């Protein structure tokens, strides 16, 4: 599991659950994500606007906005 923090919320990736389908990568409006070695990877957290589109459409619950 990798985490990266920006402001209050945290973009969290549960790597063990990721099946690398690429849906979150394709529909992220700010190109924050990429697939690396078959799993999602946060490549540009600074661009993240915390819209939560990745969490809404992840079929495997492997990425989400967590924290407070």
């Amino acid at each position: 599991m990798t985490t990266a923090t920006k402001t209050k919320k945290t973009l969290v990736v549960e790597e063990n659950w990721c099946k690398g389908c690429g849906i979150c990568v394709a529909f992220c409006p700010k190109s924050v994500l990429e697939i690396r070695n078959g799993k999602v990877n946060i490549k540009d957290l600074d661009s993240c606007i915390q819209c939560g589109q990745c969490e809404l459409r992840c079929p495997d619950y492997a990425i989400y906005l967590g924290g407070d």
Partner: protein
Amino acid sequence: MPSNLVNEYFRTENLPHIWCPGCGNGIVTRAIVKAVDNLGLNREDTCVVSGIGCSSRASGYLDFNTIHTTHGRALAFATGIKLAKPDLNVIVITGDGDSSAIGGNHLIHAARRNIDITTIVFNNNTYGMTGGQYSPTTPTGDKGTTAPYGNIDMAFDLCKLAEAAGATYVSRGTIYTTNMLIKLVENGIKNKGFSFVEAMTICPTYYGRKNKKGEAVDMMTYLKDYAINVAAYDKLTDEQREGKFIIGELYKSERPEYTEEYQKIINSFAEEV
């Protein structure tokens, strides 16, 4: 660690789920859970009933009162549960084949009775679990392992079927328009009567591969481009409607609910004694 939502409502010890990479079933399942969370329903007062098929595996991952029943019979079991305990929120999870082929009769009669059950159909246009046979919602001309030269049947419009059979809430969403799907499930649960929500999802492994629809992302893009909101659809010309399908709330009405009518009969005898 999973998200709070997943932690709260899923049997996380059973995750990751068995669905294929890019399968949309996980998105629909999360949408249902989010709708339940938004409505503040108590898990103990909520029962999830599923049939057989890829979609119906969802009940095993959900930490509610759940029952994974036999093929096509989720609504029959759900009807029994609702009549025994009318205060329960009963949610049925089923697939296109499970609900409209094997369970087609149960679907139309549950709708006819207007029993207070919310049915969510995961429509991936195929029988995924058994290897991609064509289903009643496979579009004409599309291929399945049992239709290698193309399907010659007309596909069911499940929403029209549910409406004609008597459902009092009918809507259709997609896994691309996830926020809308959540709202549709919420409104379906709120409706006192039979609610039918068709969730258009994707099967990249069988239906997608067999019909050269590309990867999961391509199939999601198709849903994004070809699903048109009901208000916008009305304004389109016939030419612009070609190949498109309608999403949104398609039908709403009010009719006596089955368990309430049944209770009236019971009460009438209590008065006699």
